[in-house]
């Protein structure tokens, strides 16, 4: 056996090499088109270019100058095209690679990637960055356990309870409404095709507004973020957030339900509600429970963050402490560490429930 392996692993003779089929060389015109696209992207980069670094090309007695960053982008794109040509990638694949490089260049220049990265060492040595990082890793636990929210007699751990309560309420209501909407959104269990299309369209609008947007909208609709109103705004925002997620995921799993029970229910003369109740609901119940637990985890994270926009819960305290960060970073550090611990515990709890139930 070893001899066979050693004989096979010797280099192939030239005849064998010639016989091996090769992928076809891609056509030239699409690649030329891609090169034109790369140049067009270069012009776009040049047009939106904000820096002032230029490269000089001495060309005889004239001096050509090109903007540095867009030129680097163009060279990268052309090199990528060349590599794709050498590897005999199809024009569509090469277009994908080109698009990735172009979008990355656009995104990077939009958020000033290179400037900020090169400034990191300077920030680490000077300024208060090091104090901040040290403060976060030495959290002040007595603040978290024994202090009150500034100016009130409410303890900090009560804010944690509000956060948990908001998450529970929003999960239960949101998952229930989401279940109903998912039933209406899937063509398998819906009234008719028009209803399912409409519900899907509404759902994609609901889903595209971020949870912060919902919280701010509801806070405005309710007229302020007083103590009780803040919790109400957060709960309503989380409910909308949950409806979007549950309706999307669950309607996809309703689409994939086995047709057998559905046909049996139809054959036994069930009407639509009976059919959904006996054939669809039991089939999607495990995934519904699993999505509900997932949404509950998301809600804990989101309700901690939503306080930032002025609603109740620990997030409000977090943003207040961030606002007075010049007095020390230990309080913020304590809240963040506690947030990690709470999220970890909720994760473990939902893992346990999932193991027990599913």
């Amino acid at each position, binding site marked *: 056996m070893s001899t066979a392996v050693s004989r096979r692993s010797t280099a192939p003779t030239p005849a064998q090499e010639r016989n091996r089929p090769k992928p076809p060389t891609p056509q030239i015109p699409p690649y030329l088109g891609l090169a034109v696209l790369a140049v067009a992207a270069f012009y776009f980069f040049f047009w939106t270019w904000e820096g002032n670094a230029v490269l000089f090309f001495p060309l005889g007695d004239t001096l050509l100058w090109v903007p540095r960053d867009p030129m680097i982008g163009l060279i990268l794109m052309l090199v990528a095209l060349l590599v794709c040509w050498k590897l005999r990638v199809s024009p569509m694949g090469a277009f994908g690679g080109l698009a990735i490089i172009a979008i990355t260049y656009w995104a990077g220049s939009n*958020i000033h990637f290179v400037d900020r990265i090169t400034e990191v060492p300077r920030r680490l040595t000077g300024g208060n960055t090091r104090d901040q990082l040290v403060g976060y890793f030495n959290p002040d636990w007595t603040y978290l356990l024994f202090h009150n929210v500034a100016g009130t007699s409410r303890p900090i751990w009560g804010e944690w309870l509000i956060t948990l309560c908001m998450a529970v309420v929003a999960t239960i209501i949101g998952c229930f409404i989401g279940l109903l909407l998912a039933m209406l959104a899937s063509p398998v269990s819906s009234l008719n095709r028009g209803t399912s299309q409409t519900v899907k369209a509404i759902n994609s609008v609901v889903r595209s507004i971020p949870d912060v947007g919902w919280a701010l909208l509801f806070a405005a609709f309710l007229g302020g973020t007083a103590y009780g109103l803040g919790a*109400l705004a957060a*709960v309503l925002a989380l409910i909308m957030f949950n409806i979007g997620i549950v309706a999307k995921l669950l309607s996809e799993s309703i689409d994939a339900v086995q047709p057998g029970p559905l046909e049996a229910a139809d054959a036994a003369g069930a*009407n639509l509600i009976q059919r959904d109740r006996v054939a669809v609901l039991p089939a999607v119940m495990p995934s519904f429970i699993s999505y509900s637990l997932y949404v509950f985890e998301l809600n804990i994270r989101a309700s901690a963050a939503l306080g930032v926009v002025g609603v109740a819960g620990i997030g409000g305290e977090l943003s207040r402490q961030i606002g007075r960060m010049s007095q020390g970073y230990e309080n913020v550090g304590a809240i963040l560490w506690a947030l990690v611990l709470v999220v970890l515990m909720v994760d473990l709890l939902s893992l346990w429930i999932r193991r027990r139930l599913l």
Partner: protein
Amino acid sequence: MSHGYKVAAALVGSVLLAAGGFLVTYSPAAESSDVFSRMMWGTVIGAGALAAALAIYGLAYLGTRKQRAAERQRIVAGHKPGGYTPDRLDMRPIRPAKFWYNMALILIGVVFVSSAAGTGMTLSALLEMPARVWDSSLQMIGGVAQVPDEDARGDWSSAFDAMLESVAIAWIGTLVGAIFSLPCGILAARNLTPLGTYIPMRFLLSVIRAVPEIVFAVAIFIPLLGVGPAERGGAMAGAFALGISSIGTLSKLISESIEGVDQGPLEASRASGASHVQMIRWAVLPQVLPEVLAIWLYRFEVNIRASAILGALGAGGIGRLISPPNGLFGQRPYDWEAIGITLFVIIAITMVVDQVSGFVRHRVIHGKTVRRRSRRRPEASAPPEGPPKAVAV
């Protein structure tokens, strides 16, 4: 078939729960925190209502004692010679008892009542809400539908800039996550990695998954990269926070898809003497790459939505444009026309990105031809919509 003892146990349990909640309202914890005391009062009310309902049910159940005794008598009589007792063929099947299922539902109900009390929501505010919603929606629609004057043009352009910045943040974040997640996913796949690497990798990934992205943003990347608008580094902080926190989920999904890979090519490459890296390159990657690309694109969509909340914390993007104190919602009175324009831009760009990435995902996974066929098939062979009416009649 008596279940009286279950009713009695549940009654005792709910009364105990209510009494315990009532006692806890006198504890020092409830005196210092009104949230806790409200929660306990909620528990008392919920458990009390449950106890009352169970008591009524139990009384009704006790009232049927005579009928149940007669039924038992009849069944016992049927066993004597010459007697008749309905056997399994005469009876409809008895529905199985779902004791724990019902208990879980009831417990969820009690927890719901107590947490709803704990949040201290003032529900009366909901009564005034529809009028305000109506007013402000009219203004928002007016803002979107008007021919843009100087102000509105500024709103449109700032909304577009902020939203495109959010897309850029999400793209860079996804890219950072993607670069790290492929090696991490391979190292966390059980069929490619020895146990000594697999277990620490899994542990690391679950730690990353447990840390919320606002923690990454506030504690690490805002100090490192800056806060505020994009020129001062807020956008970069958001992008890196999103990227690092998406490593956890991405690697988990990628390692699951690697573990589900077809074993044939792996064995073939091992038999022809490939090294480990060659095996990954030629046997594993071609199988999982479409799925991995789909996972990355899906995460890109998620990151666009997630960048909003980081923006509210001081990282850039759409969250910074809308959130108080400096954003659109921080102005009094609210500038509903600008808010309407911003929401319209958010919805439009998110939906466009979703459509494009959904198309690319479908194209990457299924290729060009399958898409056309799978569209036509359900119309051709699907059963007619709705239940057949003739069967019911």
